Each structure stands twice: as structure tokens, then as C-alpha cells.
């Protein structure tokens, strides 16, 4: 057994795949070295530091994409990917918790994008109020995991102990899914944009309710928000100490949430993948393509749509809860319409209907927002304060009007990037196979689809079993 595997391995190496492997490893190493080099104190003053360090981290994460695309064996890809996610990134993150924060937020949005991808990408139901489910999950834990429940129910049994967190994680999934069904039920008959507007309305309704439910009973504490929200227990701290790893609590929590998010994402990918390749996924696609014909094939529209809504919602519920615990504090500002739009943008930028696409979309958008655009504006700010003069125009940057300060125009740059991205790569970064072909054609660009091979004729059993009814003849 092992011998056979080894043999295959040797063959692979001989096939030249080892070259790719070396290339990928070299890339990862280069990114690591770059990040390490940037860590020197002297460089922090450099004007280009903020941008370059942001890009370096993006490049490091980009290695995951490289691995995904490299023609390597699944096992090798798995090992490489996991070692980056489980070893290298946490290692870097301990030195710079900001990286962990970015990675965790990427993860939270990636899981949400995966969920929304089921609703929008698989089933073709445009949901503009997705953040509502995120809010449901977040508030569920925020209320019971803080003293807020005491105020609301007039007891003093709360906050719940940290251990309850895990039970509530399941509860959040259930409650969010249930909310999804509640929303789904009245809107079953709606199509396309009517559905979109109702989901938008629903998202707003949830936000306004959360924003106002400090009276008549104070359930959500209104705009004041709820704090502090209980965090899950650091049950593993003694073990780490025993291993000789001593980290302070903030860092431990940063790591903790990072891994927690990874686990949920792993679960989400697994779920989405399995569903996609089954009758459930096919039914969703059929609904997306032609509702009437799908119904004529025996697909119960209502039930399948509800299933899509509930599945998508459950991811958001879980993530909302983790978000609440991670933030310590939540208030309605985290659950606005723009947030829903943000997740939708991730799904489409990544490639609608594509699972890796949703993750990449979330990563790109989040990193762009949190790091690269920020890095860019910090760099320009430095230039300005350093009194740099634009060479040819002889224009001192310090006289750059404050009205044009780069930090204010992150959204503008983001807007332009969105437009460019849609024009240059409308199918998304990693398109789903089906969508990719559809688009290549619509836009007259060529892209050869990879077709699966058919079993040869001989492999098939010959006859079709006849059902019981016998033909009647006159």
C-alpha cells in the first residue's frame, strides 16, 4: 500500500510536478521572508511601509490561491494549505495580532459569503437582507451572554457562563435557520426583484427592531448596544502552559477566534460542497434556471427555496455569534444594509455559485478594505507629512488640500475597483464552471470548458427496466 503510494509519488516527481511544488514552496518562503524583513524596526518609518506590508500579507495569503491552482496532488495541496492556515499564519499572528484580526474578519465574511452563495449563487434568489441573520446570531448570544438578559427578564442569572457559548453556537444556527424560514414563508410566491426588495425590507426591519427594542422592554439596549459579551472559555490554556507556550489572554483569544472561524468555515465548505453535488444542489440550480420547468419536474419550489434560505441563514447565525463574542460589544451599526451589500459583493466578485470563489471574494474585499486601501492612504499621509515634492510638477505634497486626503477616499477607490473588476472579470475571480461558460459565450470570449469523461458504451447495463403497467391494445 505504502509502497504503491511512494511509487506514484516518484512518478509524479518525475512528471515534473515537483517543479511546481518547488515553485510554490519558493513563493511561500519569499512571502515569509518579505514579511519577516518588513518586521525590522527601522523600516517602520519608511514611507512605503504601510502599503508594502499590507501587500506582503496579501501576497502571503495569495499563496493559498497558488496552491489551489497548482497542478499538485490533492494530498500535497492539503498539507501545504493546512500548514499555512494552521501553523504559519498563527505564528505570524502571534507576533502581529493585527494579522490575526484581519484573518479572522476574512474568515467571518468568508463564511457569510459561503452562506449567501447558497442562496444567491446556487438557488438564484437575490437576498439583500442577509445581514439580518448575522444580527440574529449576534444578538442571541449578546443578550444571554451578558447582563442584558437580566435587564430584560428581571433576573440575575446572567450572563451565562462561558461554557454555554458552544451550546449557543448550535442554538444560533438553529434560530437563524428558523428566522430564514420565517422570512421565506411569506415571500415564496415572489420572484426575482420582488424577492430582493422584500429581503431588503426584512433586513431593515430586523435592524430597526434591534435599534429600538430598548422599550417597551429593554431586550437589545437599542443604539447603546450590549457589552460586555461573554467569550468562550480558554479551556486549553493549562495545556498550552504545560507545553511551555505562554501567551497573554488577548493574543490567546485572537488565536482562539481565528481557529474557531476556521473550523466553522471548514464545516461550511463541507456542507456546501456535499449539497452542491446532490439532488438538493441540482434542484436549486434548476429553480435558478427555470422555476416553472423545475416545478414540472416535481421540485417543490417552496420547500427547496426555504431550504436554501435556512441553510444560508444558519452560516450567518453562527458567524454573528462569533462576531459578538470577538467584539465584546455589539450595537445595531454592524448590521446595516451596506453590510448585506458588502457580502453580496464578495459573492459576486469571487464568482457567483463558486465555493472557492466565495472565499476568495471575501478575502479580497476584506483585505482591500482593511489593509490595502488603508495602507495606501497611510502611505500618502506619510508622504504628505514628510514634505515630499512631486518631482515634475514641483508640487509639494504638504500643500495637498486636506479635502483630498486619501484616507477619505477609500470608498471611492473601492468603487472604482468594483467597476473595473466587473468589467474586466465579470465572471468573478474563480467562476463556477457553469457560469463561466455562460459568460464566456455572452461576452464572446473563448474559454474551453473542461468536460467530464463519459463512461464508454460497454460499461452500461443494457435494458431499461419496464414499469408494471402493461400496454393495453384494442
Amino acid at each position: 500500500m505504502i509502497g504503491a503510494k511512494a511509487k506514484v509519488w516518484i512518478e509524479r516527481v518525475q512528471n515534473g510536478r515537483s517543479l511546481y511544488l518547488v515553485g510554490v514552496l519558493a513563493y511561500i518562503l519569499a512571502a515569509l521572508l518579505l514579511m519577516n524583513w518588513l518586521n525590522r524596526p527601522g523600516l517602520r518609518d519608511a514611507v512605503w511601509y504601510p502599503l508594502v506590508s499590507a501587500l506582503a500579507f496579501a501576497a502571503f495569503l495569495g499563496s493559498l490561491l497558488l496552491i489551489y491552482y497548482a497542478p499538485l496532488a490533492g494530498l500535497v495541496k492539503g498539507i501545504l494549505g493546512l500548514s499555512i492556515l494552521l501553523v504559519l499564519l498563527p505564528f505570524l499572528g502571534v507576533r502581529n495580532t493585527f494579522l490575526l484580526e484581519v484573518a479572522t474578519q476574512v474568515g467571518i465574511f468568508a463564511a457569510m459569503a459561503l452562506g449567501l452563495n447558497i442562496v444567491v449563487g446556487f438557488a438564484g434568489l437575490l437576498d439583500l437582507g442577509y445581514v439580518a441573520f448575522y444580527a440574529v446570531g449576534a444578538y442571541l448570544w449578546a443578550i444571554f451572554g451578558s447582563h442584558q438578559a437580566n435587564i430584560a427578564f428581571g433576573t440575575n442569572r446572567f450572563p451565562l457562563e462561558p461554557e454555554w457559548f458552544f451550546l449557543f453556537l448550535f442554538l444560533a444556527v438553529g434560530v437563524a435557520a428558523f428566522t430564514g424560514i420565517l422570512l421565506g414563508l411569506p415571500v415564496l410566491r415572489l420572484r426575482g426583484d420582488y424577492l430582493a426588495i422584500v429581503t431588503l425590507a426584512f433586513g431593515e426591519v430586523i435592524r430597526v427592531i434591534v435599534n429600538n427594542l430598548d422599550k417597551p422592554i429593554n431586550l437589545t439596549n437599542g443604539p447603546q448596544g450590549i457589552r460586555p459579551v461573554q467569550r468562550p472559555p480558554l479551556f486549553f490554556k493549562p495545556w498550552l502552559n504545560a507545553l511551555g507556550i505562554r501567551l497573554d489572554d488577548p493574543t490567546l483569544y485572537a488565536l482562539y477566534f481565528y481557529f474557531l472561524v476556521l473550523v466553522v468555515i471548514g464545516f461550511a465548505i463541507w456542507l456546501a460542497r456535499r449539497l452542491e453535488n446532490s439532488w438538493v444542489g441540482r434542484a436549486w440550480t434548476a429553480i435558478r434556471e427555470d422555476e416553472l420547468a423545475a416545478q414540472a419536474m416535481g421540485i417543490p419550489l417552496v420547500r427547496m427555496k426555504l431550504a436554501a434560505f435556512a441553510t444560508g441563514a444558519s452560516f450567518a447565525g453562527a458567524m454573528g455569534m462569533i462576531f459578538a463574542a470577538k467584539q465584546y460589544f455589539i450595537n445595531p451599526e454592524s448590521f446595516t444594509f451596506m453590510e448585506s451589500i458588502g457580502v453580496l459583493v464578495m459573492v459576486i466578485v469571487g464568482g457567483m455559485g463558486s465555493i472557492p470563489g466565495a472565499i476568495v471574494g471575501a478575502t479580497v474585499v476584506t483585505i482591500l478594505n482593511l489593509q490595502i486601501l488603508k495602507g495606501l492612504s497611510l502611505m500618502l499621509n506619510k508622504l504628505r507629512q514628510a514634505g515630499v515634492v512631486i518631482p515634475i510638477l514641483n508640487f509639494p505634497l504638504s500643500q495637498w488640500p486636506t479635502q483630498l486626503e486619501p484616507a477619505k477616499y477609500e470608498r471611492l477607490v473601492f468603487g472604482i475597483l468594483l467597476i473595473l473588476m466587473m468589467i474586466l472579470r465579470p465572471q468573478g475571480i474563480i467562476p463556477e464552471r457553469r457560469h463561466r461558460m455562460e459568460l464566456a459565450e455572452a461576452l464572446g470570449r473563448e474559454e474551453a470548458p473542461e468536460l467530464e469523461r463519459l463512461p464508454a458504451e460497454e460499461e452500461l447495463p443494457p435494458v431499461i427496466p419496464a414499469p408494471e403497467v402493461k400496454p393495453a391494445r384494442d
Partner: protein
Amino acid sequence: MANLLELRKVTKRFGGLVAVNQVDFTLEPGRIVSIIGPNGAGKTTLFNLITGIYKPDEGEILFEGRSLVGLRPDQVTARGISRTFQNIRLFGNMTVMENILVGMHTRFRASPVDILFQTPRFRGEERELREEALRLIRFVGLRASPDELAKNLPYGEQRKVEIARALAARPKLILLDEPTAGMNPQETAETTRLIRRLRDELGITVILIEHQMRVVMGISERVTVLDYGEKIAEGSPEEVRRNPRVIEAYLGRGVAIGAIA
């Protein structure tokens, strides 16, 4: 023998227009029957009534003795009635294979748990049904690859996929709406043979809407003629062909009518 399908005084109106008017229709299992009639006579509407896309304004529709009125289309399909559409409605961005698998929707038994944990039950079922889908592809005589996107197929091939998809649910009754439209004579002949095999080899009862008389006369055991929503004739192909009302309204006298002055 008991009737498989029975329509009693079925009426459907659209605003002031009576598209189907007090139509009675009965069908024994194992038959191939045709519905013909001028354009706009109400044939397709009749199919839509049976399959639950429209609700009849009046009348009763019984399938195996039980009423179909009020059921949703998917519930009708689950009862054992499949159909094809006059304007082809394949899932264009799904492959031929996927289209047929969607047609088998009602037959999947694997639960979500089976799916998530890829139990033997899920895998076995998936493999079996995929194989059956391939057999169906062969059965209807599709030449295209099962992995081709449906919308990329030529018209005639698409019609065949539609038939295969309808068969995938293992229906007791299949409703074919102009299956040979857009086919050349050779393909039409092929399809005619196919329809006969549906009944002979699979034991499926067939209702056919057609405008090509060669097909209608060749395979149907009984023909019903609609005009302006009403049944104006019914009988064997020969009887219908000689019926003057049918000739007047539908078949024509074989000479051009002086429509252009």
C-alpha cells in the same frame, strides 16, 4: 378497464376568452392518443390544466380516480404525470445529464444526512440513477454528449432531451406538446418510432399534441379535435380525417385558400 385520466366538463377562461370550454376527455391506460386542432384551439391550455399550471374555472380532472384540481405542478408530477413543453424549457445552463437527473427529482430517497455523510445509500442511489440517465439518453437516441450544456444543443436534440427528462420521473402518463416541431422528416420519423416505444417498451400512456398529420395518423389510436376551446370531434384517425368540420377548421382541402386578394 378503469380510466387513467378523466376530464369532466373542464373550462378555462382568460378574461373574456374561453380557452377551454366544457371539455370531456377520458383515457385508458396504455394508449397513445392525440389532440389536434387549429392554432389557439386550447390544446396547450389543456395540458397546463392537467399539470396544475392553470387551475380550471370549472370541471373536474381525475387521475387514477383521484382529483388533480388544486395540486401544484410538482405534486402532479409526483402522481406520475410528466410533460414536455411546446417552447422547449430545458435548464439551459445545466448539462444534459443534469437535466435528466433533475427530472428524476421525485425518485431520490437519500436524506440530507445521507448526502452530508455520503452514506452508501446516497452513493448507490446516485450511481444507479446516473446509469439509468445514460440509458435514457441512449433510449431517446441522443447523439450529443451527456456533458454538453443543454442550450448548446440543436433544436431537435433539445426536444429529445426534453423527452428523456420527462421519462426520468418514470411517469405513468406523459404529455408531449408538439414533440416534432422543428424536426426534419427523418427526425420526425425517428421521434414517431420513439413515441411508440414509450408505450410498447415502457408501458407509458401518451397524450400527444401535434400538427404533423403524418405523425398523428401514424401512431395515435384515437384523436380528439379541439376548436375554439371546444371538442368538435373525436374518434379513430380515419374517422377524424374524414370529418368535414375537421377538414374545414384544421386540415384544409389541400388547396391554398384564397387568403390573399
